């Protein structure tokens, strides 16, 4: 059980959130080649340590945001307050 800091509502229990995975920017559709698309769709870094990841306050304000979480300790290191981070 964790507490996730929603940039809009403040810290709330994990159960109110939905996980969106590691932040991987969507490629520009046209210039991107197969390798770029393949990496975007299927390759994740799966670090033991800090990871930049997406969350959505699905049972709250519905805000998507990114935060940096240490996957080994669950410590949340950084929560950008900017609204759109992709």
């Amino acid at each position: 059980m964790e507490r996730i800091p929603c940039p809009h509502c403040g810290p709330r229990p994990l159960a109110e959130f939905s996980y969106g995975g590691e932040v991987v920017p969507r490629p520009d559709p046209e210039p991107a080649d197969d390798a770029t698309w393949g990496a975007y769709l299927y390759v994740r870094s799966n670090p033991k340590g800090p990871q930049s990841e997406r969350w959505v306050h699905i049972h709250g304000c519905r805000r998507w945001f990114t935060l940096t979480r240490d996957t080994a300790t669950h410590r949340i290191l950084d929560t950008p307050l900017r609204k759109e981070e992709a």
Partner: protein
Amino acid sequence: MTRLSGGVIDRSRTLSFTFDGQAYQGHPGDTLASALLANGVRLMGRSFKYHRPRGVLSAGSEEPNALVELRTGARREPNTRATVVELFDGLEAKSQNRWPSLSFDALAVNDLFAPFFAAGFYYKTFMWPKAFWEKVYEPAIRRAAGLGSLSMLPDPDAYDKGFLHCDLLVIGGGAAGLSAALTAARSGARVILADEDFRLGGRLLAESGPFTDQSVDAWIAGLEAEFASLPNLRVMRRTTVWGAYDHGIFAALERVADHLSTPGEGVRQTLWRITAKRAVLAAGATERHIPFANNDRPGIMLSGALRAYANRWAVRPAERVAIFTNNDDGHRTALDLRAKGVEVAAVVDSRAEAKVLGDYPLLAGALVTGSRGRLGLKAIRVAQHGRDQWIPCGALGVSGGWNPNVHLASHHRGRPVWDEAQQTFLPGEEGPPGLIPAGAAVGEGSTHAALMSGARAAVKALDALGIKASPPNLPEAEDRPLGLKPLWHVPGKARAWVDFQNDVTVKDIALAHQENMRPVEHLKRWTTLGMATDQGKTANVTALAVMAELTGKTIPETGTTIFRPPYTPVSLSALGGGNTGTHFRPRRLTPTHVWAEGRGAVFVEVGQWMRAQYFPRPGEKTWRETVDREVLATRAGVGICDVTTLGKIDVQGKDAGAFLNRIYCNAMASLKVGMVRYGLMLREDGQAWDDGTCARLAEDQYVVTTTTAQAGPIYRHMEFCRQGLWPELDVQLISTTDAWAQLSVAGPQARVLLERIVDGFDLSNAAFPFMACGELTIAGGLRARLFRISFSGELAYEIAVPARYGAALMGRLVSLGADLGATPYGTEALGVLRIEKGHAAGNELNGQTTAQMLGMGRMVSVKKDSIGAVQSRREGMAADSRRLVGLVPVAATDPVVAGSHLFTEGAVHNTGTDQGWITSACYSPHVGSAIGLGFLTEGEARQGEVVIAANPLEGQAIRLRVVSPHFVDPEGGRLRV
């Protein structure tokens, strides 16, 4: 009754209880264990493996031996520790793991065969023949070994869960915890003090005169009064904090009504999730015993427990008592017992230099090397200066030092560290952030040290939160050192128990060593040490020390042992928190649910929704009969179905069209206001994901629908795209699934019926053609939305009204359409109608199919980017030749079975020759036989061909003819009339 003077029991009241059917009496303040001891009952259970007679070892939650079945009937609870069961009037307890009775247990024969049952016995013995394990060996072993049994009846009690927040959580209400809570509460911080006992005080209650300037009773009474006056402090008795989780979250179990015979109207237990900014771990320490030959007889217990029974519960454990110790704490027990008039036969102290501290015989430099007494201790054998003597006694208190209760500090894998000076493991540095251990839990075990340590921990914890606190005036208290000299076990040939609950002896550890199971984790699994319900609270450290001795290494070199939640057992009922039966998960009811119930509808679960499946009429004998009637009535007249469960998302903003263009693979921006378009959504990997309709109600407003199953995920996805991918677009979303009741009105009479309810709205084909949408009022002013869309292939509309009018609208339509044959239909008929029409649904959109396969390849626009468009054009995706086809049996009476795989006639059936599969099947009253939809290789070109539908599970191979997936009105003429 053999009671001493004093004690924290209410002698003015007597409580009656039974143990194994025998009636006894106790007092409020007693535990089951103290009351049994006071009644002279020492034998309380049988051991797990050898069925050895066992009595109580401890006076607290660490108890390994005295496990009983509590209560009867559906409330029967096995493996309850008698040491923590608060006595109530009428309590019924039974011993467990014995047959036919506790004093004569036939399976005690296991003990005679003990040489065969050593560690690893099961692993080595019950190997052949392999099939015997499941059928013979395991059931037999499980019957012979084991603990209590379940009632097998549903739990009749209510359980709850709750959430609490605080600045400081104080775990434990002994000297350190009380001092910490007092310090923190006076600062004004929000404080929770939780203790597993029903009375605050912890070890203070078990000691005689730990304070030199006042009595414990008076101090605690004063604290209780002050605590009650502080609104910022919540005291939680009977509450075990059993787990430390991330971000300052702790799990706690409050036994709200376990001390009553039944909870009455209230809950029995509450599971609390406590979010604490800081926590003080004042969990105290657990005394360790010293294994010696036959050290498990009833009457042999921890020295501190013996003292607790005498001081707190006024229990005389026996006429003559002996002590075996390697430190001064054992002497304290002797002193306290002497002071209460109990005869102390001897204090056997392993330290040669031990000094006598009072009026009792001391045997210094001596060891207890054996014991006598089959069902209860009669005598101990003591070796001193090379001479043996037997000393008669009915109870022996053993003190091998104290192990700090580091459990919660290691719940994040923080490893305890060995303290050579104290010869104990202390909480490590890498415990849960914000958790500060204090008192005996960190080796500050004297009363003085614990009081000071608790106050210091509270000040430190609050300082980190910017709250100023200062230590209060605390009682003057004893501060004696233990003077411990390590003695981990008494060497000898006979069995000496280390883990009482799982029957692990020093010999078993030696065997593990011999078999090279030396790392602690191997040792545990090989011998099952520490893996019983007590999780080795009284065993693990001792076992580690024994292993260290065998390997010739130091204890820290040998390893350490960490703990997982829960600290003490938590019932599954409490973890469920009342979420059983219909509370297991929420049920969503459609607006017409009650109306449908009134019509005798049969319901089906669709995700969380309960939907009407079909509406049986009197005389209809099978569901098929009902469904066939509903389908035919719809195609002949008009049918009405509640389709509220489809996801509805309102999309508004200047860029709503541009946004939907990127969400759907087909174009949506070009849709005219007042019109609806079918939309297909792809996943980013190019597979088909979900479909629905987009209705453009205004230049800047669309209402889109999703399938019932994907309503949540699609909405989440659209929010992600809006916020994360294209924040520059001016668009807003809101789910309106629950706001609007939506009914499908389908059939050739649909228009006639709707004309009877709209407020003068022109429904003519010219004014409101196929795929039109609009806002209107009905029934004299009720606002509504009308969409001319069809899932059934008939002339059809979907009409939406505010949800609270859904049932009324349904009732009104059915009664107004009586002369038109208006028929409510359920999901079953809905499915038949759409299969007959060849519309894709969840079965076809299963995440493994593409737009091409669905026959919609050309819908994927190449003029714009949309989610999944690039990947849908990948070579492998584009080359897929499987297409949606219709299937009918060659022999009209043959079934069509969904899930069957399709093969060319005459081909062998394997994955290499597989040509596709059947996605949906039903009986079609329109066609007059079973029909199906499926994906078939080169499906477009194979109409008329006969293929084989193989269902190897049931040995079926059925000949089916490939036809158009549109069994009804393939040209779509009926939609446009």
